[in-house]
């Protein structure tokens, strides 16, 4: 009788890439729903456009690799779809259609497939594409519309669709007019407004009287209207991911704590010229970045200590870019910079091999 000896690991976790990706996509739904509720159909249309482009590009790149049997499985493993969804979420809702097409194609072809495909890309494809779009098309990429409830033009599904494809609504309003409030001022994102007005010499307290900041929770708390619910929805999705152990808790927690500490120090030193930590948490792409982008297993750090360091570094960078940088939000830039440091961080935080000293590990 043969005695069958198997080497470890003995207990296999039967999860596939596609199952993990599907879970992450489901966890994005609350956030997408909140975005739809406050900003209309634009992001969903962009997500659809980006998914179509991403799948086409992925199919093209995979067929060049000429392993035709595996194409179907790799094409629908969910990674390209997830990248496309993330791009669609990040874009301004009324950006023209070619923005999401160029972004998705760049993310899949250049950032992902040119480096060797799934698992080999040094940068997060969605964020690299976002940064490419932001520096290439600054006008289109900063034409954020205000939340629907503050707009004086009814932006329904068909209006959004025609705006994305032609630049004008059915009634002939341009994107610029969509962004204009009743008083004739162009409305920007809360972070943008905060930055511009701080430069003009207003205090934070005066700035949050703006109706962009008055919100459904209460007018004086200083949250950004609409954005706070979007961020809370992404937080809920992220907590589900952590509960399901799909992502490690270290990165998002250390990122949020680091951002909180940085902004808290500034806020307690000079409350007039800096945003409150809670405003930092609930505007821009904070929660999306913390739970869905920094936790990317391919481009992030892998060890426990490394994840803590990378999250903290990202929090610091986001705070610095938001406060001193040229762009109002800095999640994408911070993520790319952290992706660059990830291999080095991993090098120095390599865990001790069982049975070896740390010193002998080096040799």
């Amino acid at each position, binding site marked *: 009788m043969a005695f069958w000896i198997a080497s470890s690991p003995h207990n296999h976790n039967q999860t596939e890439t596609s199952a993990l990706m599907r879970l992450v996509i489901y966890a994005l739904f609350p956030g997408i729903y909140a975005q739809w509720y406050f900003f209309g159909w634009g992001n969903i249309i962009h997500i659809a456009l980006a998914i179509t482009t991403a799948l086409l590009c992925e199919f093209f790149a995979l067929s060049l690799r000429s392993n035709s049997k595996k194409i179907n499985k790799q094409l629908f493993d969910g990674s390209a779809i997830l990248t496309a969804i993330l791009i669609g979420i990040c874009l301004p809702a009324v950006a023209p259609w070619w923005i999401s097409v160029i972004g998705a194609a760049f993310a899949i072809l*250049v950032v992902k497939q040119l480096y060797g495909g799934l698992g080999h890309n040094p940068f997060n494809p969605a964020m690299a594409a976002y940064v*490419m779009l932001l*520096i*290439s*098309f*600054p*006008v289109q990429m900063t034409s954020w519309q205000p939340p629907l409830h503050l707009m004086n033009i009814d932006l329904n599904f068909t209006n959004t669709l025609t705006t994305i494809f032609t630049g004008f609504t059915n009634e002939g309003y341009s994107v610029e007019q969509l962004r204009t409030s009743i008083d004739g001022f162009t409305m920007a994102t809360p972070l943008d407004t905060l930055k511009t007005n701080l430069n003009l010499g207003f205090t934070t307290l005066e700035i949050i009287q703006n109706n962009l900041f008055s919100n459904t929770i209460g007018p004086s708390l200083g949250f950004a209207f609409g954005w706070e619910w979007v961020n809370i929805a992404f937080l809920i999705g992220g907590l589900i991911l952590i509960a399901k152990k799909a992502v490690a808790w270290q990165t998002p927690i250390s990122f949020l704590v680091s951002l909180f500490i940085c902004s808290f120090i500034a806020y307690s030193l000079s409350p007039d010229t800096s945003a409150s930590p809670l405003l930092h948490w609930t505007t821009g792409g904070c929660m999306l970045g913390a739970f869905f982008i920094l936790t990317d297993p391919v481009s992030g750090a892998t060890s426990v200590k490394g994840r803590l360091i990378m999250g903290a570094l990202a929090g610091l960078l986001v705070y610095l870019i938001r406060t001193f940088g040229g762009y109002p939000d800095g999640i994408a830039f911070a993520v790319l910079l952290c992706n660059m440091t990830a291999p080095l961080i991993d090098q120095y935080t390599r865990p001790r091999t069982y049975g070896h000293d740390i010193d002998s590990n080096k040799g």
Partner: protein
Amino acid sequence: MNTSENNVNEAPQLSENNIELEQQLAEKTLAQKALKAEYKELAIQGLWKNNPGIVQLLGLCPLLAVTATITNALGLGLATLLVLVASNATVSAIRHWVPKEIRIPIFVLIIASFVTCVQLLMNAYTYGIYQSLGIFLPLIVTNCAIIGRAEAYASKNPVKQASFDGLMMGLGFALVLILLGAIREILGQGTLFDGAHLLFGDWAGVLRIEVVKLDSQFLLAILPPGAFIAMGFIIALKNSIDTYIKQRQPKKEKATIERVRVNFDS
């Protein structure tokens, strides 16, 4: 009688002379063939196999910085070409009198004086291009492709070959610049030869072609990162063409040596 004797005596001399002449002719044709082959090799090396832009990767700084439009690329390419030919010829002409120990400073001096000439000429006749090239025109001095050719080829070979080598290397570099400039200009602004009148005079304004009408500029193509990405694609294309050519060539069969194993045990 005398004449006939003379004739008899002269005949072998004539034939000897003929043989010498024939030998000389044969040597000459051989030398010409060798020279032709060398020129051909120089052209292939400069334009394709050892292209300073996409194979040696020398002079990347101006290559990436000023190729936002074809006109700029052409201006810099021509300037570099001129400097390269002139410096190669000069270095080669004085190669017997240059002490080995101080050859590098001498090469740099020669290159710098030619760059100054070209810079002053462009300042005088093509002021627009002179301004848009900016610091990258005097920086041709530090272009490694030029001093590399002076050191590697011109200082060891006669003037003709050295100047031809300079011409081919300069052409290769200029072609890469123009290709990169064309790609970036089409992607960035949707035009070709925008601002050509700065380089060639007012008549060249008609050269401007509007390839596509873009609503907004694609800034990435105009900024240096876009140049890096486009450069990567060009190098990849060149390498893939090379592998394609290699595959097309008939494979040489390796001579296999069959050995008989002698095993005493069995």
